[in-house]
């Protein structure tokens, strides 16, 4: 009995460390979200209840940020998955030059998002960028890549696709290489066409991995800030402002800590809700396919 108690004693230090480094900041942020707290001008903190949350839920800027983030994430992750899977299938089929392509495809994801965004900003620059210069040379009008809302969102999605498709390729390729060979050999004996092999064997067997990969990319995509910050700064107006950039502006430009904390928790709720809905939708699909 005494030994039983001692084992709990050994657990306590680890528990306290976890409490200190993760749970405490979370609880502190939660309490701040119910207060009016600003660093500048330095005003005494006061309890405001749900005012920060209600203010955000009533703000068009908040819903605009959710819409912008969702559009960028849905478009970019969908394309990342399709292109990533196609590339993984090509690499798995040992296309000529596969040994060269494999490291080349992975190159973008090794770059820092800020560096990628800076390069993209130069490429899409209306005055100094090569893309518009080439378009103008061919007689096309100068395109407002970063100054018109729809174009700017498209550019952000393109940059996301360019940078993160390699990760999807890498994960899907690992999945492909782990599939049992016997099933494909049996399909070959049955004279199954390549499409039949893909649609009836490869894709269903990869579905659990696909669900996980898409889920990871969606969660990561929802956190997008650096690319948007460098490319458009959230403008014009707030038309390309994502949730994380909105939170950054509230917290680090306006030092409105109460509002920024509330925004962070709303963001957490959005992600959680998104995850629950996504997994609920994916489950029957996986059960049907497997």
């Amino acid at each position, binding site marked *: 009995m005494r030994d039983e108690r001692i084992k709990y004693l050994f657990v306590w230090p680890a528990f306290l460390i976890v409490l200190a480094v993760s749970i405490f900041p979370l609880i502190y942020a939660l309490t701040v979200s119910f207060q009016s707290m600003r*660093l500048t001008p330095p005003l005494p903190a006061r309890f405001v209840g749900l005012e920060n949350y209600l203010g955000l839920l009533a703000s068009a800027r908040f819903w605009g940020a959710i819409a912008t983030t969702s559009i960028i994430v849905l478009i970019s992750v969908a394309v990342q998955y399709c292109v990533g899977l196609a590339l993984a299938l090509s690499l798995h089929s040992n296309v000529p030059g596969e040994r060269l392509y494999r490291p080349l495809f992975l190159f973008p994801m090794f770059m820092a998002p800020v560096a990628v965004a800076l390069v993209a900003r130069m490429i899409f620059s209306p005055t100094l960028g090569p893309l518009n210069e080439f378009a103008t040379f061919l007689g096309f009008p100068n395109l407002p890549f970063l100054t018109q809302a729809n174009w700017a969102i498209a550019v952000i999605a393109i940059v996301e696709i360019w940078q993160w498709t390699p990760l999807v390729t890498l994960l899907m390729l690992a999945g492909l290489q782990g599939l049992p060979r016997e099933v494909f050999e049996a399909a070959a004996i049955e004279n199954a066409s390549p499409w039949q092999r893909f649609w009836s064997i490869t894709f269903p067997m990869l579905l659990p991995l696909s669900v996980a990969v898409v889920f990871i990319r969606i969660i990561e995509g929802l956190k997008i800030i650096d690319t948007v910050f460098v490319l*458009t700064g*959230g403008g014009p107006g*707030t*038309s390309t402002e994502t949730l994380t950039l909105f939170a950054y502006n509230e917290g680090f430009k*306006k*030092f409105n800590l109460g509002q920024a904390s509330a925004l962070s928790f709303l963001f957490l709720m959005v992600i959680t809700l998104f995850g629950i809905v996504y997994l609920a939708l994916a489950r029957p699909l996986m059960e049907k396919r497997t």
Partner: protein
Amino acid sequence: MVHKLATLVGALMVSAATPALACEPDYTGVTLSVGVQTGPFVASALKTASDNWSKKTCGKVNVVEFPFGELFPKYITALQSSTGDFDVMAFTPAWLPDMADFLSDMPANMQQGEYWADIHPAYKERLMIWNGKVKAAQMDGDMHTLQYRGDLFENPEEQKTFKAKYGYDLAPPKTWDQYYDIAAFFTRPDKGLFGTAEAYKRGGQQFWFFFSHAASYTNNPNVPGSMFFDPETMKAEINNPGWVKALEDYKKGLDFNPPGSLNNGSSEIRPLYSGGKVAMNIDWGDSGILGADKKESRIIGNVRASVLPASAKIWNIKKSAWDEFPEPVASPFLAFGGWQLGVPTSSAHMEAAWNYVQEVTSIETSGKAIVTAGTGVNPYRLSHMSNVENWLSIFSRPEAVSYLGAIKGSLDAKNVTFDLRLPGFFNYTEALEIELSKALAGQVEPQAALDAVAAEWDSLTEEFGKDKQLAAYRASMGLPPLK
């Protein structure tokens, strides 16, 4: 024996006195921590001065650099929690209202003699002061001026064609109407030339460019301090007809800027000028310096500058009507206002810190910094502006005379306009930037955009405490407290 003893004692005294002579004042063992934005701009000037100071005083300096966006949060958290992390802070005048309560006063011995007399009054009587006390030392002077190209403006063919078309001589514009005439005249997309370049990007310092236009229509000398707020009620004035006119003007300029200028910040418009793609631009002095850089510029020898254009009609908030003046009233805008140095009261080495500040801002050290590439230090002392010879390592003589003339002319102007300095500065400018970029993108009309800004500004003022904000605003505008 006595003689030998005396010699020995004398030698000992000399050797004991030697370090003291080398270190004057002696700050041996003192290490100052100096906060600044990531270099080379400003930070390199501080590092050079640090070496000088270390040689003189035997103290050490640790220059700690942070990206500009992180600088203010670092400072304000360090000041509010009195951590003593910084002995000297490099900051902008707009932050002074939020920081002033935590900063020490400049020592009296620095507020006298040639050191003090040589600082331009616009800085030492206004921007370095908060609530009647000198809280900061200027280390850089900043304002918006108009840059133009000598090769275009002094070309007889261009002059003749311009006069035939507009009926007056081609010269640096005195009014905003002339500015747009000239911008339209030089807009020749087929030749890769555009009239002007200004920053329009949200987060690219756009609001300072807007303020430069607005100063001409709203900084009424008949109602001092009424540009941003009513100095008696603290009601936001940013949606009055003067501001709307300024926004319409600012937006009109897009027609004469290179394509895609909505995404140009101040760092993009400099190479447009030095690269010869525009005839004019509005910017800080950095455009002129870049235009004279032999490695970067395509307009070598042709850098010219003048005071910002003006207006002869200025909105009067008391009469709710335009005041007409016989001549355009030059209202050059001291955008940003330059970098300053302050010493927190939490510093453990306050005396040494102020001594270091004095070294950085001394006539000799600052005189070298202003003509050293990459320091980002612009003139703020009278000697900086009068000593043309000092500038000939960068500029040709006509360029130097023009560049310095524009700076001095701006600072000396009777109706010189000071930047907004108010607690919660970024809350006000963030609200402005959002609506401004919506208006520039054509998503809302200028009046509607500015109405939204005014409502947000009034709401922020109420939240921060109207009386406190009013007192701070009046102090920043050089007005006495309300009775």
